[in-house]
């Protein structure tokens, strides 16, 4: 009896604390995004006296010739393309790395760990991109994300391929499947659950990335959403309502991801982490 009361008070305290610490900042974002410019500039945590949520939304979207819409399109292309390339190439490496013992294994394993630990050298990367005429282009940034994200994908795929029985490969080989068919029509479909995990985790990472976009796709016109938000912050210091509307819009895609793929995100972030 005493134990149960303790549990409920403990729970209540935890809920109140979590709301104060973790939810209030998000409520603040929503409330400020709904205020008029004068009221938002007070930076108060208060109920808006006048709700102008949709007016603000329209204003942010239309601002500077629909720059936010273009930024969202850019971010969407960036995220989809880089994650797609990463998944296919990472699965190929993880698969061969787990299945085949060869003299390359040690080297590849070392490079994968190096890719996880070593901070990328930014200016030399710009130098290479410029040599390839990919600097300040969306494909350039996509390739950079692929190069930097592969290590994480390979680790997850290697661990998962280990759980697929080799007898399956042998059966397919006896049935006459070549290496390509074996991988793409037998193994790849079996990787589905880990593919979802990799996609979700990397998509959130690429979408939220600011540093690489700042270095490799600078400027304002062709920017990603994170960069637009950052530029917006430095340009219009008085329009806090619009700034927070922008923050709110950028928070929505990860929120939607989290609602639908809660389990995969958690699995990916913790399992991948344990291996690293």
């Amino acid at each position, binding site marked *: 009896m005493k134990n149960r009361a303790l549990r409920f008070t403990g729970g209540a305290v*935890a809920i109140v604390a979590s709301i104060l610490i973790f939810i209030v900042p998000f409520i603040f974002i929503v409330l400020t995004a709904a205020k008029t410019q004068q009221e938002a500039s007070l930076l108060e945590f208060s109920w808006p006296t006048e709700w102008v949520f949709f007016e603000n939304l329209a204003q942010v979207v239309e601002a500077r010739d629909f720059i936010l819409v273009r930024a969202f399109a850019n971010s969407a292309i960036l995220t989809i393309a880089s994650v797609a390339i990463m998944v296919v190439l990472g699965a190929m490496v993880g698969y061969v790395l787990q299945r085949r013992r*060869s003299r390359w294994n040690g080297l590849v394993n070392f490079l994968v760990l190096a890719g996880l630990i070593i901070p990328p050298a930014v200016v030399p990367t710009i130098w290479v991109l410029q040599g390839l005429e990919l600097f300040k282009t969306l494909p350039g940034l996509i390739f950079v994300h692929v190069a930097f994200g592969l290590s994480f994908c390979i680790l997850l795929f290697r661990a998962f391929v280990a759980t697929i029985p080799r007898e399956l490969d042998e059966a397919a080989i006896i049935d006459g499947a070549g290496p390509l068919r074996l991988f793409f029509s037998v193994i790849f479909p079996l990787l589905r659950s880990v593919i979802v995990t990799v996609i979700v985790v990397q998509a959130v990472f690429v979408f939220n990335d600011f540093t690489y976009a700042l270095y490799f796709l600078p400027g304002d016109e062709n920017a990603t959403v994170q960069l637009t938000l950052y530029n917006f912050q430095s340009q219009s210091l008085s329009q806090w309502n619009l700034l927070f509307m922008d923050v709110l819009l950028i928070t929505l895609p990860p929120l939607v991801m989290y609602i639908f793929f809660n389990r995969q995100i958690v699995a990916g972030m913790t399992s991948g982490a344990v291996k690293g």
Partner: protein
Amino acid sequence: MTTTAPRLPRRRRGPGISPYPTWFYIPAGVFYIALFLIPTGASLYFSLTRWNLFDATFIGFDNFVQFFQEPALLQGFTNTFIYAFVTSGSKVVLGLLLGVLLSSQIVARGFLRSVVFFPVLVSTIGVGITFKVLLDPFDGLVNTVLATFGIEGPGWLTDPSLALLSVAMVDVWKGVGLATLIYIAGMVAIPQDYFEAAKVDGANAWNNFWHITLPLLRPATATVVLLSLIGGLRSFDLIWAMTRGGPGFTSDVVASVIYKQYQGGFFGLSTAGNVVLFIVVAALVVPLSLWLNRGEKES
């Protein structure tokens, strides 16, 4: 011809017809080598030059000398360690506490887990902007609340001695959810038998925690420490969004120095910063990971 026949059983398939072709490495390798390995290798050379992307003049170790002599740059170097140690230490302690709390039979457990974890997924720039406003010295929510209790809140981001720690605090706010989840995953893996055996021996909750949970959470702790240390040493976007290394250079870290020197056109110096960061991360993380994971190899 007959001499090759006895060898066949040893290599049933030639390298070309193995079901696991080595060329599967090539497409990924192209991206990795071109955009990661070559730049990393080139950085070792370019850090020894005065460089503007077109011409590189070899100047020996001048960039590194400058890096460790100019107070503004040196401060970035020491700040990197402070930031990384404060954030990873707090993430371990808070993550462990929250992990234990959220693995217990507490009400609304699922809700609490989601709430603690969600900030991990939110844009760092968005978090930075929001907390910059919340920590505003005059109108910010934090100081307004403190004022109602009669406490005069400090200028979190404007006080030179506090700015770095304030940003570290926000970093912990954003990242503690991941540490918590890793600890929860570790707790789930502990067999219940241990606790039942301990119960027979008359252990209390504290004994359980200290002698069973904590030692068995060692792999989880290793993961949290390594992840947050790597992240903390490389950290850039949150600091840049909140203070841009200011006031003065008091919250600069190596990663923000790299960006500032790059903006200023000092590409050689910027690359030297990168090499310094590379060495710091490798020198800290590699021995630490060997030490933290030493028990696992034996078992």
